[in-house]
């Protein structure tokens, strides 16, 4: 029963995916051609801003159109479990920004290979940055989708997304201030900064550092728990949105 859902979502989202991919490649290519920024800076800007902006755009266009188009009942009355509908929609909305970000990654990799010596390290950095960017955008996208009111327009989902973004910034500021007040030198990697941005509980571990693998395992566990909670809230909202 999931095939027709996949077919429908693919047909609804494919042009958006194509649009965002073209737009991101265009901007990245333009920055590179005009030598406005380095490849690294352009990549970082694209991942953070492009990923977040297109993640928001994606979140607005996944669930809300069913409500504004009044097709929720038509979809929900099919003999298919609500969680499958939710999962399909979430996944194709996710592809809408993950695919363009991957495309940008490949583009940057091509530039790096084409222009610099010793570029394997840079490729590794691109890969790490891409993964971090997609994780960041995924968290933001999921929380926006899931915490938007049950029956809301695309514009309202956009507002919710902005609020989620502000809350994430606030968490980052609280984390930074706490770490600064504790006298811990701010030598966080970009990846650690992203993690601080995503997970409101992460700062606890940076203030009282736990050594080695245990530290990262706890962080990922918390990330996963928060992520699963967002999905659970969202799924129940979707089920009650009829």
């Amino acid at each position, binding site marked *: 029963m999931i095939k*027709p859902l996949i077919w429908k979502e693919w047909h609804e989202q494919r042009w958006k995916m194509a649009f965002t991919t073209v737009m991101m490649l265009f901007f990245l290519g333009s920055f590179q051609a005009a030598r406005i920024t380095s490849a690294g800076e352009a990549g970082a800007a694209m991942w953070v801003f492009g990923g977040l902006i297109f993640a928001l755009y994606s979140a607005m266009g996944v669930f809300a159109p069913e409500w504004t188009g009044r097709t929720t009942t*038509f979809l929900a*009355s*099919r003999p298919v479990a609500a969680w499958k509908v939710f999962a399909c929609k979430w996944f194709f909305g996710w592809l809408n920004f993950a695919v363009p970000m991957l495309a940008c990654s490949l583009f940057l990799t091509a530039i790096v290979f084409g222009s610099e010596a010793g570029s394997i390290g840079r490729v590794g950095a691109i890969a790490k940055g891409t993964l971090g960017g997609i994780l960041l955008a995924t968290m933001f996208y999921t929380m926006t989708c899931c915490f938007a009111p049950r029956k809301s327009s695309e514009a309202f989902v956009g507002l919710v997304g902005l609020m989620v973004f502000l809350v994430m910034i606030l968490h980052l500021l609280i984390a930074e201030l706490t770490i600064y007040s504790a006298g811990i030198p701010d030598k966080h990697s970009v990846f650690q900064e992203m993690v601080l941005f995503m997970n409101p509980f992460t700062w606890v571990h940076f203030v009282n550092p736990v050594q080695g693998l245990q530290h990262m395992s706890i962080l990922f566990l918390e990330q996963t728990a928060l992520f699963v909670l967002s999905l659970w809230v969202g799924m129940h909202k979707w089920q009650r949105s009829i």
Partner: protein
Amino acid sequence: MSESAITIKGLRFSYGSNNILKGVDLEVPTGSIFGFLGRNGAGKTTTIKLLLGLLTPAAGTCRVLGLDATVDALAVRRSVGYMAEDQQMYGWMRVEQIVKWVAAFYPAWDDKLTSKLFEILELPAKAKVKTLSKGQNNRLALLLALGHRPKVVILDDPTLGLDPIARKDFLRSVIVLLQTNGTTVFFSSHLLYEIEPVADYVAILNDGVIVKAQKTDELRRSVKKLVLRGGEIADNADVEGILDVERVGDCIAVTVEDCDADKQAMIQKKIQSDIVRQVDLNLDEIFEAYVIGNRGKVSCG
């Protein structure tokens, strides 16, 4: 096999603090055409959504073809054909695409029947759904509800927005397609004069409960308007079965259910006048009496 295709017992549901259904009890006989009547906001669509397992009741049970709608919602939806009120479908799909898409959800989908329905309902296969007229949209929704040969068909105000000729054509299609197969049809409508010639049974939903559920013929036979010349309107509330009392010129009109000789005699005694005329009512008038009738509670004079 159960004699009732649909059984509802003690059904309660609220939207927040707004109690919509306050204990609905209903049985829909298998193979019947059942008209479900009620005012706007009475809870007809809510009841239908509960039958499909799209909502969870606060209390009570709904069973469709013996299946519990809350526990076996998917099985219910697989067995039932449903047409929502003012059903909106995906405008970007072509008619044949949406039929194929819906068919994929139903293992029992019958392609031969679908082809036949395309001809009977005169649907343009290649047209996009967003270009269809209201009548075509409704006929497409009906096709999608019937393609898997359901044993129960639920139609929520299926003629909403159609002009009189389109409504007649639509109802004719429903009867032709469904009556011969012994399919149970449960449909809600505001247009009572249209339900009257087609429905075997009717139920009236008012103030969260079913106030009347009966065979259409029996209901028409049992509810009468008695016209008495002169007399005094007093508080007739203690006469059981009085639905409405009103003064019309120099006459008093009493609408009463289960109108038999004893009841007529009691009313004549209460009003101190003789019955000059007994009027047969149509379904519209019966519905009005049940829903907004004063139940004989009138002030004197």
